[in-house]
């Protein structure tokens, strides 16, 4: 077994004063490719936010001691981004260099060339000068993946990266994810499509606030486990106690 890139120790995270992730323990092995699945409101996005440090842990710990913040890349759900914003494709991708350019340093020709290459890698040649408002949802998701390519992160967190994205783009971006896996990066993706998970993700965490099962995908996604997850999510909605500590 590999060393853990990220381990969770009795983790509880609250969202809106109710526990959204409940007493979860386990580890994401370094270089692993894991899908997080579960019913709506199962705490999947909350878990990613907690790993990013955007939500505090109410109890327990998240350990990623070997990773600095700049080693982690995070792709939130697309709805949080203003896609009408007047900015060009190249400028969005260049933000992937943030840890090299920060707020003030200049973008060099070399960094620019890397950004153009990243765009080519997601098959968006000649899109540099296009305003993002002219892109389709699929094309825009390709832009965000190009930005993550530049971030060159050891741990990559994807929150529903293929929701409302066309099939062709999904296939291309899954290739990118596989390439990351081949480069021994740790990838964690929140997904809905179980067929996709079975086909492309070796490991799965089935979450319904508590962890239902965590391990090899074939052993996690059994009808029995899925039924338990659904029941658990439904039962908890009414009886979830308020958090002891404010979120």
């Amino acid at each position, binding site marked *: 077994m590999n060393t853990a890139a990220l381990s969770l120790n009795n983790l509880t995270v609250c969202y809106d004063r109710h526990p959204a992730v409940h007493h979860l323990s386990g580890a994401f092995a370094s270089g692993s490719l894991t899908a997080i699945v579960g019913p709506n409101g199962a705490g999947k996005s909350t878990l990613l936010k907690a790993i*990013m440090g955007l939500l505090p842990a109410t109890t327990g710990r998240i350990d990623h001691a070997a990773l600095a913040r700049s080693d982690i890349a995070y792709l*939130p759900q697309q709805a*949080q981004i203003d896609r009408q914003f*007047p900015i*060009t494709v190249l400028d969005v991708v260049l933000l992937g260099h943030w840890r090299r350019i920060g707020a003030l340093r200049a973008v060099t020709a070399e960094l620019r060339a890397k950004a153009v290459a990243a765009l080519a890698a997601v098959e968006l040649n000649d899109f540099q000068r296009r305003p993002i408002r002219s892109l389709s949802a699929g094309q825009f998701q390709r832009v965000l993946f190009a930005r993550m390519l530049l971030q060159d992160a050891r741990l990559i967190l994807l929150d529903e990266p293929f929701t409302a994205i066309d099939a062709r783009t999904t296939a291309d971006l899954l290739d990118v994810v596989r390439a990351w896996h081949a480069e021994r990066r740790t990838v964690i993706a929140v997904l809905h499509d179980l067929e996709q998970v079975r086909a492309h993700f070796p490991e799965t965490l089935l979450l319904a606030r508590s962890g239902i099962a965590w391990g090899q995908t074939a052993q996690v996604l059994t009808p029995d486990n899925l039924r338990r997850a659904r029941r658990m999510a439904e039962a908890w909605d009414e009886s979830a106690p308020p958090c002891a500590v404010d979120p």
Partner: protein
Amino acid sequence: MSGWIDGLFAPFVEFSFMRRALVACLALGLGCGPVGVLLTLRRMSLMGDALSHAVLPGAAIGFLIAGFSLTAMSLGGFAAGLTVALLAGLVTRFTGQREDASFAAFYLISLALGVLLVSTRGSSVDLLHVLFGTILAVDDRSLLLVAGIASLTLLTLALIYRPLIVECFDPGFLQSVRGRGTAYHLLFLVLVVLNLVAGFQALGTLMAVGLMMLPAAAARFWAQEVWSMAAVAAGIAVLSGYVGLLLSYHHDLPSGPAIILTAGMAYLLSIVLGHRDGLIVRFLPRRHLQT
């Protein structure tokens, strides 16, 4: 013909108060244009309006303490505007009240307080001065203040341009790489209040926000990127100042409304003529590109 051309320059050549007013408009436009663009992009257009009204009680208190001193009124206005911005922000953060409702509540309280203060202690002429500004009576000190605020605004915007834009376009990304978006947001709110105070001197509390929002709203029809939108907005604001002053001089109109109405005309023209999404581009049949 020469008389007509003469009319474009003579007022400024002949009268120093017109020259001062022109320079004040130039400085105001350079600062307000870019700030307005960022306000609209942050979907805070109406909050600019709210803040401009919130400035009033501070200015009134300054007026009550020091009489008709622009320094005292500006300091008071700055403090009041910032208080409202901070209170509204804190209430939103800690109670889940929507940001626009929160701003509206505090600016209304602030505005009522301001009108109360001015009307109990001052005369209605003073109230008119505060509400509609005194650009034709701008003195050297307030000119320096307006120019100083414009310079500070442009320098600060240059320094925080990149994170400010990321915070506005993709706040999740900024949080994921450094997690300090709130600081830039607050700094930006300070710039908004500063520019409103500068505008309030010249145009009055009710008109000040006009030079910020109208050119910014118009710029959207001409430019595709933030920096070019800011440049277009500053240009429209400066031009509106010049044309508005001329109109007010030749037709004996109050200068504040003349300037803002000129900016309003620029906005209406942009809606129709703008090459990005303007009505003509949108609805006139275009020929397909031949290849």
